């Protein structure tokens, strides 16, 4: 029986690669249909999938691939981390078969013990017995004449089993052997996922004597790859960028000591950023650190401003005192921009905000109060004369008048009209996972007939049994939808494990052995079967009456348990069941019909829509916060500048740079995401710095030239770092690099053009 009906059971499909999942908020903003939060559910489903691995063995002959598949499965099963490894061979373990056999009359949904049904069943069994494949049906006929085991297996399976060759799963074209494995995991634990990938790879290379290739996929693999890729790429870029910036500074200030000193505020900024974030949040996400580091790289600008304004004729402290008000205003306004981020309820972004604010303030304070003393520790030969061409740059200027301002504004307006903003709603587009890896994943899922988890119905109740009961109550409505052809089918947890009540009801409905014996004997009389052929059946039915119903404890470690793990979740005191649909003709119709059920403990979720609208909600929230930040910055500028001319210049430079940055990104066909927005905050901060320094009223031409020199070094180092990031193939790094590079360039050009001139 088990040879004929392979226990193929569908595996769950992951929707969002968990690497980018960290950039989804924990709760959704938009009101859900019922009071079940779809995003919460999404997170739970994703977590449940985080331990699933799909792999493919390619190359060699088909026999070699099959042998490798069998050996790899054996090896992995020896490792206690792996809960299951399926390759089509022995899908149903002995434990599974025992449970299935023992509890068949409690698990089966449509058993009929009437005389009529027995007569019919015996007719069908007779046909099977005499058919060419009769030999394969024999062993189970005595004890299971109504073929309940087969009915249950049908009840359990959703998809079609993949093709088998040499008794293991293969792709249809037979060039790939396929396996599915699951590990014990608690949430999205990248380290555990990394270990699992390593174990799979190590075991495979130990058995691979024929040069076969192994490809692994799954959420865990995505997460591991994303982390490794972002880590190695940002490390590579930061090493190159650090060297480039160091050389630039060395060239600009001709002093190793100064270059060394310039690094101190930055180091302090990083340390304080990490500490403050950890104190406030208890931990710091790796990804926050990676992005945070790029954001507070600006801390390098503060010592640069100081170094370039030092002159021999005056005390260093006096020089610092002269530029401090400008620097201070720049730091405060930039910090206000990042402070806006901390107001979001989404952890990753809030952490980023705290990290940046703490880092920037520390860098400014260290530059202001510590750096002067440190410079004096060693005699520094200060280069007083700036190159002639810098002097020339400092003289470039466009007058800040109505004509020029309206010219720039109208060009910006026209361009915005021509290249409107294109928002990115698909989080997966930002994933650093290569297209090949995604293709592999799609291919493997298709070959393994894993279903698409797009349309789901969430059921909530207070216990595991209650949620199963609720799922059972829905069956009638769902069956109706199958009849309506709204859906081709559905898969609910009660198909796997009925509620205790249902099992007890089924026990009550079992006929007693005398009656059953009579019915069986009558059925036998109408058949060709020998009397007494089905005594095992009568005995099994009798024994089923007194079985304690199956519960989650009893099925531990069985295939039922593993299957339920992706359909039944516990969150604190609430239990959720996930009902999945196949062959949904139209999501909207399904949604409408499910909403008609009008139950607060039910929620229809279109997972793709949920994650997209979450991204949209989240971006809108970020936009709102940034707008508030801008307003606060504006007020701060009014209060501290008290100079309408300068205020207008600063606002004009900063806003134009931001607008042109966005326009340029649109021209480059970049769909704007959260990462572009965060980068725009940095552009804003840099723009404030540049414009405040360039609109400072200064007495002498030489001070103006020094400012110009410092500005050039600042711009040069920022452009270097972010220009390198822009070359990255990782979408997130590329987005940040490109936005800041373009933005800082506009900042620099506009601030230079619209600078105020020295009095003399």
């Amino acid at each position, binding site marked *: 029986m088990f*040879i*004929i009906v*392979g226990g193929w059971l569908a595996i769950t499909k992951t929707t969002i690669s968990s690497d980018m999942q960290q950039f989804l908020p924990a709760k959704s903003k938009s009101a859900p249909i019922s009071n079940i939060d779809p995003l919460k559910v999404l997170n739970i489903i994703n977590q449940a999938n985080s331990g699933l691995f799909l792999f493919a063995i390619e190359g060699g002959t088909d026999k070699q691939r099959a042998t490798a598949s069998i050996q790899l499965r054996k090896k992995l099963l020896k490792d206690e981390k792996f809960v299951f490894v399926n390759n*089509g061979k022995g899908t149903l373990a002995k434990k599974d078969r025992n449970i299935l056999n023992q509890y068949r009359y409690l698990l089966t949904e449509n058993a009929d013990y009437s005389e009529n049904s027995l007569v019919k069943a015996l007719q*069908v069994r*007779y*046909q*099977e*017995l*005499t*058919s*060419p*494949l*009769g*030999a*394969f049906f*024999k062993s189970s*006929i*005595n004890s299971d004449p109504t073929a309940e085991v087969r009915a249950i297996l049908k009840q359990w399976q959703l998809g079609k*089993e993949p*093709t*088998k*060759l*040499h*008794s293991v799963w*293969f792709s249809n074209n037979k060039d790939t052997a396929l396996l599915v494995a699951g590990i014990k995991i608690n949430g999205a634990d990248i380290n555990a996922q990394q270990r699992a990938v390593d174990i799979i790879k190590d075991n495979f290379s130990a058995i691979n004597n024929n040069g076969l290739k192994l490809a692994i996929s799954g959420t865990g693999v995505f997460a591991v790859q994303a982390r490794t890729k972002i880590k190695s790429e940002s490390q590579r870029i930061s090493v190159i960028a650090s060297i480039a910036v160091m050389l630039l500074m060395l060239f600009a200030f001709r002093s190793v000591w100064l270059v060394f000193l310039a690094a101190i505020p930055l180091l302090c900024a990083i340390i304080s950023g990490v500490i403050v974030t950890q104190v406030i949040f208890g931990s710091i996400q790796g990804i926050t650190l990676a992005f945070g580091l790029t954001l507070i790289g600006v801390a390098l600008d503060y010592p640069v401003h100081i170094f370039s304004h030092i002159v021999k004729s005056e005390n260093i402290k006096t020089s610092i005192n002269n530029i401090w008000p400008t620097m201070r205003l720049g730091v405060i306004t930039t910090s206000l921009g990042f402070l806006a981020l901390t107001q979001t309820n989404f952890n990753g972004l809030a952490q980023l905000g705290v990290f940046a604010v703490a880092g920037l303030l520390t860098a400014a304070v260290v530059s202001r109060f510590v750096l002067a003393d440190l410079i004096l520790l060693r005699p520094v030969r200060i280069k007083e004369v700036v190159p002639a061409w810098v002097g020339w740059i400092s003289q470039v200027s466009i007058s800040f008048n109505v004509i020029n301002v309206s010219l720039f504004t109208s060009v910006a307006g026209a361009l915005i009209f021509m290249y409107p903003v294109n928002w990115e709603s698909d989080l997966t587009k930002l994933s650093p996972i290569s297209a090949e890896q995604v293709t592999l994943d799609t291919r493997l899922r298709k070959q393994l007939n894993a279903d698409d988890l797009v349309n789901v119905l969430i059921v909530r109740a207070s216990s595991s049994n209650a949620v199963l009961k609720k799922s059972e109550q829905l069956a009638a409505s769902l069956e109706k939808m199958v009849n309506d052809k709204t859906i081709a089918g559905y898969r609910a947890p009660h198909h796997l494990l009925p509620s205790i009540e249902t099992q007890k009801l089924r026990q009550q409905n079992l006929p007693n052995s005398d009656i059953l014996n009579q019915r069986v004997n009558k059925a036998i009389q109408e058949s*060709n*079967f*020998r009397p007494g*052929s089905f005594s095992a059946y009568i005995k099994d039915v009798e024994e089923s009456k007194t079985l304690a119903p199956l519960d989650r404890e009893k099925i531990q470690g069985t295939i039922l348990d593993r299957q339920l793990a992706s359909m039944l979740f516990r969150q604190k005191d609430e239990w959720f069941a996930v009902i999945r649909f196949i062959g949904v003709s139209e999501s909207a119709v399904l949604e409408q019909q499910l909403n008609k059920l009008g139950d607060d403990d039910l929620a229809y979720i279109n997972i793709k829509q949920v994650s997209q609208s979450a991204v949209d909600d989240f971006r809108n929230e970020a936009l709102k916060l940034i707008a508030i930040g801008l307003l606060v910055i504006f007020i701060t500028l009014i209060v501290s500048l008290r100079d309408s001319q300068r205020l207008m210049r600063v606002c004009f430079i900063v806003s134009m740079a931001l607008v042109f940055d966005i326009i340029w990104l649109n021209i480059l066909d970049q769909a704007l995401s959260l990462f572009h927005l965060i980068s725009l905050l940095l552009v804003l901060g840099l723009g404030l710095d540049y414009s405040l320094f360039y609109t400072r009223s200064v007495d002498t031409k030489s001070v103006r030239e020094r400012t110009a020199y410092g500005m050039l070094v600042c711009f040069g180092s920022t452009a270097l770092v972010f220009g390198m990031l822009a070359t990255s193939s990782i979408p997130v790094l590329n987005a940040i690099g490109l936005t800041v590079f373009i933005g800082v360039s506009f900042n620099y050009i506009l601030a230079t053009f619209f600078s105020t001139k020295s009095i003399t």
Partner: protein
Amino acid sequence: MKNKLKIILCIILNLAFSTITYAGAQDFKLVLENLAKVKHINAEFEETKSINMLENKIKLAGLLEYRAPDSLSKQTLQPTSELFVVKGNDLHIKNAAGEETDLLLTNYPVVEMFVEAYRGLLAGNLKKLRDYYEVQFTGNIKHWTITLTPIEEEALELISIITAEGIGENIHKVTVNEANGDSSVMQIKNTQDGA
């Protein structure tokens, strides 16, 4: 001296044996070649099944068709109509109730083994037969018997031995003995030979 004698004796005995086996092997080879030459068969069959669980022996009758290299169909007409068609890796079944099922042979290794016995014999493909069975040949080109004993443990639990008897290039009787004592005997009568 004694040793030498022993060696000579051994050589003689060996030679004698290998001649006998050689003759058998030659015949076997020729039988397989003859079987392979037949590309198309239409035949009638009569089958008698003895099944412990059933009171009476079951008699079936119907038509068989084979097309080289891998198409085989068995249409039972008596006592009920039933169709069983294999082509390549596809198995199509239409049972007495008219229900149709399509399966992939490779997904059901024991069924595959069973089918390959027939296909392997009809195609004279010894290599294929040996993938699944221990193959033994007795008789001569004219009257021969080929017995197939499953290699796999899983298969042996169901089927003990398959015996095919033939005359020349025609198989006329196939007996399947199952592990539980049940058996089936199928008599085959060709209605038309094709090339």
